[in-house]
């Protein structure tokens, strides 16, 4: 496995795209940059898949890019209308993800629940991003990056490494913006990131919950995890030293996503236990044969 190649595709490339666009636009294109980084990773991992995507789980990079454009709308200009536009964008994005399941698998109630859960998960991330401005841009960026990184871990444990890599790409983009914000000339307005971050977050978490094996409880924890950004900001701001403030903010942000990851890990491990519940025949040295993931039921349910 080419680990360096994987890092280039899912961390270095999206970070570079986000950094470049944010730097040349004085932060104005930060949202476009993060979404552009996500799209770059998607294309590097899968190649051109055509547009519109056939696979509903491939919408996230495209609609996040639309969210990046929406982020150009200043947060203080007609904020109610801006919020309404964000909600419409989140619901539209959620529909693109849920529609195939609504067509053949979900009842009307389940469809409504999936739409609401996806949109609300995204809205929590968008609101937390916007609200974290202006006091603690750096701490907010760091906390957001860590929330996405933690979400990537939870997705990876839920059976979708591709989803994890996409979440990691957003984390890398936000991490690059955090580094930019550490420089004297690198201002990154968080509201510009809000719609892109919200759409990407909502769709990626929902991809895990609807199309992979992310447990509902882990989804619920991830849905409120972005709110930790606000807590991280306020706790981080109380620290006397900036570095301590950032460390506190980062640690606080990691708590809920760490919990979600632990829930996903427990669910994954319990699947493995069920698989290995039937004793395997011992090996030549008397040790149990087979590995933990081996299906001793031979595919029978």
């Amino acid at each position, binding site marked *: 496995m080419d680990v360096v190649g994987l890092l280039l595709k899912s961390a270095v490339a999206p970070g570079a795209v986000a950094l470049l666009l944010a730097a040349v636009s004085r932060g104005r294109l930060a949202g476009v940059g993060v979404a552009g980084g996500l799209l770059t990773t998607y294309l590097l991992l*899968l190649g051109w898949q055509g547009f519109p995507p056939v*696979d509903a789980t491939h919408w996230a990079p495209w609609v996040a890019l639309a969210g990046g454009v929406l982020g150009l709308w200043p947060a203080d200009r007609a904020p109610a209308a801006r919020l309404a536009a964000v909600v419409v964008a989140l619901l539209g994005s959620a529909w693109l993800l849920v529609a195939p399941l609504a067509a053949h698998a979900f009842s009307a109630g389940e469809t409504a629940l999936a739409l609401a859960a996806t949109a609300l998960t995204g809205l929590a991330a968008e609101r937390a991003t916007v609200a974290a401005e202006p006091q603690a841009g750096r701490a907010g960026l760091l906390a957001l990056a860590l929330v996405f990184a933690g979400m990537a871990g939870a997705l990876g444990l839920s059976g979708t490494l591709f989803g994890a890599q996409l979440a990691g790409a957003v984390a890398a983009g936000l991490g690059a913006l955090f580094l930019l914000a550490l420089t004297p000339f690198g201002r990154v307005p968080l509201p510009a990131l809000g719609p892109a971050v919200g759409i990407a977050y909502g769709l990626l978490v929902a991809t895990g919950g609807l199309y992979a094996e992310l447990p509902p409880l882990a989804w619920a924890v991830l849905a409120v995890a972005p709110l930790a950004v606000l807590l991280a900001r306020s706790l981080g701001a109380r620290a006397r030293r900036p570095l301590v403030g950032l460390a506190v903010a980062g640690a606080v942000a990691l708590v809920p996503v760490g919990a979600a990851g632990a829930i996903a890990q427990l669910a994954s491990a319990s699947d493995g236990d069920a698989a290995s519940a039937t004793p395997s025949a011992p090996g030549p040295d008397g040790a149990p044969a087979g590995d933990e993931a081996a299906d001793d039921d031979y595919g029978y349910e």
Partner: protein
Amino acid sequence: MRSIKTLITTALAAGLLLAGLGGAASAASYKVDNAHTSVIFKASHLGIGTFYGRFNKVDGSVAWDAAAPDKSAFTITVDADSVFTADKKRDTHLKSPDFFNTKQFPTITLKSTAVKPGAKDTFEVTADLTMKGVTKTITFTAKKTGEGKDPWGGERVGFEGSFTVNRLDYGVSYMPEGLGKDVTLIVAFEAVKE
């Protein structure tokens, strides 16, 4: 008198021709027997080894005409969620959006569009393979493995074919460096006359 004779001859010939055509067009219907059907795939892992998997649930129908095999047709429907590689975690991963995305694309179908008889019991089959919402036409050689009555009085016919596809053509594009692009499928099915 001569014209009446000609008329009767013509009518008989037409009748025979029509009867013959009718026989060729009325292929018998068979239902695929899941218990005696195998859909097996193999792919390269890391360019080092080859691993095999199968789909445990297969359904389908066959219209088989022994007298005129070119009038025959079949549709095989595979339950993508029944993928089995003897490793639950790998099966879960294969079902996820990374590969088959079985929640959105629950079935894989192989539907013949032309069956051309070849040498002894072999056929050149042209079929539409649909996977992850992408349909592509493939051509492969199939062999009739047998035909006859089973101990319970049912009539059965069996076929087997093998073909290789590039999974990237079907949007199963993740991890091309880890899992080989070329996937070989063996489809061996038995069908019972309805």
